[in-house]
């Protein structure tokens, strides 16, 4: 049984939704902890705390990542986009608009992660096939079952 340790902290420089921030991160803190507890960005959710559900998905240098599996102290200099940063100047991202228009959400708890996983997909593949859509979103669980409409929303964005 490990003894109680004194937490150590380290300043980490991050770009969060376009703005440079320095956070005083406990060495064991995950990026999800930092976003939620230190920066008040609660759009990313903790659904499992072990990289199995995708509710904590954020973009790290443009790639969709599970923030519950990343230590903040290892993110020095990285650019993080959370759901709060997806809309620009109050204008919803086309992905957010498509999710609303096609009702590709129910309770909305997993929606921030779904939206960011979709953003990463379209950034690298503007016209994904159904299989590419399914693969890109297969790491984001939705217990309400909005999957069929997430597919429809993604197809509409792919121009289909």
């Amino acid at each position, binding site marked *: 049984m*490990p003894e109680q340790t004194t937490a150590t902290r380290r300043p980490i420089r991050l770009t969060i939704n376009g703005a440079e921030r320095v956070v005083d991160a406990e060495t064991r803190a995950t990026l999800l902890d930092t976003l939620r507890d230190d920066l008040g960005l609660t759009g990313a959710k903790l*659904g499992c705390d072990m990289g199995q559900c995708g509710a904590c998905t954020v973009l790290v240098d443009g790639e969709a990542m599970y923030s519950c599996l990343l230590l903040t102290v290892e993110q020095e200099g990285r650019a993080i986009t959370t759901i709060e940063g997806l809309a620009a100047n109050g204008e919803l991202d086309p992905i957010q608009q498509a999710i609303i228009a096609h*009702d590709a959400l*129910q309770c909305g708890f997993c929606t921030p992660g779904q939206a960011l996983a979709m953003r990463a997909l379209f950034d690298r593949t503007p016209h994904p096939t159904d299989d590419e859509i399914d693969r890109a979103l297969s790491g984001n669980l939705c217990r309400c079952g909005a999957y069929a409409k997430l597919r429809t929303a993604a197809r509409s964005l792919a121009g289909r």
Partner: protein
Amino acid sequence: MPIRIVTTHLEFEGQVYEQRVVLEGDEPAVWDADAKLGVVGQPVPRVDGRERVTGGAQFTYDVALPGMLIAVGLRSPHPHARVASVNAARAEVAPGVRAVYTRFNTEGLINPNGERPIFAEEVVYQGQEVAVVLAETRQQAIDALRLIAVEYEPLPFVVDPEAALAVEAPHVQTTRENNSIGEDWPKIYERGDVEKGFAEADVIAETRFTTEAALHNSMETHGGVASWDGHTLTLWSSTQNIYGARQQVAAALGLHQNQVHVIKRYLGGGFGSKFDAHNSGLLAAWAAYHLGRPVKYMLSREEENLAAGNRPPSVQTYRIGAKRDGALTAIELRAVGNVGAFGGWFSPVSLPAKEMYLCPNVRATDAPARTNLGTQGSFRAPGVVEGIAGLEVALDNLARELALDPLELRRKNYAPSYQIIEKPYAVKTLREAYDRGAERIGWATRDAEERRYPRGRDSSLRRGVGMASQFWGGDGGPPAQAIAKLLPDGSAVIVTGTQDLGTGTRTVLAQIAAEELGLPLAAVRVELGETEFGVFSPPSGGSMTLASVGPAVRMAAAGARREAMEIVSHLAEAPIDALDVRDGVILNRETGKEMGSLGSFLGQLEGHEVTARGMRGPNAEEVIVRTFGTQFAEVEVDIATGQVRVLRVVAAHDCGRIVNPLTFSSQMEGGIIQGIGMALFEQRIVDERLGVSVNPNFGDYKVPTIRDVPEIEIITVGQPNPFANTLGALGAGEPPIIPTPGAIANAFAHAVGRAPHGLPLTPDRVLALLAE
């Protein structure tokens, strides 16, 4: 306005309750099939979609208050043990720790229903609370948890329900005489003469069918955030029942109900598991009250899967007798259920055998057993999902023995009226659902060679088509209240105390109010999820929210409109009958001339808000109101690997009037997808030697992902149901999950020519079945 007290019947999760309710005034006339409606019936996107896609939606889990402590739980690793001692001395002085609660310092802390201490001397399932640590940060609480030393004295346990019912079985709880859930169990239902029925039968088919424990796994776990300011205890609760939670917290802390304020802004799923404040919410409230600091206790995923309910496993044994032409002569069912440590009630697994098909002679036994596992909780059409799966598989087995088409067998035994008590169904459109679903799935060609063997007989791929059906309530009932307010600018606020689980409640209520008020949807705001500012609404479950709260909203809106039109009539010096309001504009009915906006009239008055109250009226007593539906599934089985894929589901359902076809289809798809999970993947796996669950996480308990989702076609059958309520609408939350597992099981049997013995159809089970 004078009130009256009325006795009415409410069906909730398969049980009928008689209850006395207060009513006042008269509801508006039913919107029948001919009603000309503009906003109701439109596929409008959710009114709160923006909050849900931007991270702006505040879930209970997102609530953060200044000075808030974080609670983390320590739970029993044993299925049954005496907690001899808990040494928390080192944890109590660990950095950041403000309190450690155990059974030794929480006298009077009882569970939400007031039945037993939250921290017990005798723990009776893996995952039962032993201690809770409260610290400044979550990490500090987790660190301190490891410093608590618990001395357990293990006790004999039982996890198999049939073993638990045996006389010599270990007692799940040493203080109880046996493992029954109560003196009146097992319950035996009988009608007609089953022995005579079997004697008359030409064929008797026997089926044993099992279903496993399915875990709700709402993405947001159970829990609460509580704060006590010396006068008011505020609890943000992840609950489907804010008024129930208020009553429980007030009772637990000895407060007046007016000192407890329960808030549920956004809920990350519930599916029936969140009908109270939960032990976690009550613990947060208790700690906040005693420590004077805000407290947050949200369960971890593992705690959620051990201690927050489940769809209990069932073992169903059927004997079904029929004449050569398929007419049923007798149904006998024994359903053994595994309801876990505290039991409570047993979901009605036997209900389908009693109601779904026409049969004069039925004997159905529900025999639930307590075991040393996490207690069951209602889960989206509890009992009936697994009961339909068993019955529909048994019926297909009968069809095979009779060499009859499965759909023809069901048509032959169509139940025209309710058989449990002699009452007619208000509306039953299941034949139309059969016809339309069968056409879309291509039932007539289901046996075609190229369809059964898409890559030829040499390939290991087999395809099959199967079907199953559903009945369920969904007409809701009183009590449910709403207030409609028209503000001086002509905009409206609708106040309710209901909960939106993600079903779209806020949106459909706004549509109903906009329709009745003659306002554009954007001019209506719906409040819900707060006890202090809301008015009573029932728990959101049992597919009853729309059908209960919707009519109350409509009545309140009608009252507000009436008063507003009286005001306009005075100010415009025009007879009230000559006035109409559409899209927020006052019109002269005869000339169609626009007279100005509603706000231009109401704004002329000094400080007046039009306010009216609405109440859901009593249910129809002379008929049984049901949703009906049928689903057809096409599956592909790889007989080499045992893998099963669902290719297509056609779902034809009657839920009365569809207020919003967009959110309705989301509900349908969501239910079907959960049903696919139950059919193919989902099961709590228990190590019977140790009495513990080995997969309380998303890695080992597989829920469907987007890649498991087939093409889904939704067919809306039926018309506004005039017996249901003034909307003609029925709930759509539970109906869609009911037929899915049974339809998939029957499609599987069609594909491989062998009926499954149970669900889920995991590859290991499939290969074992094929090897028999």
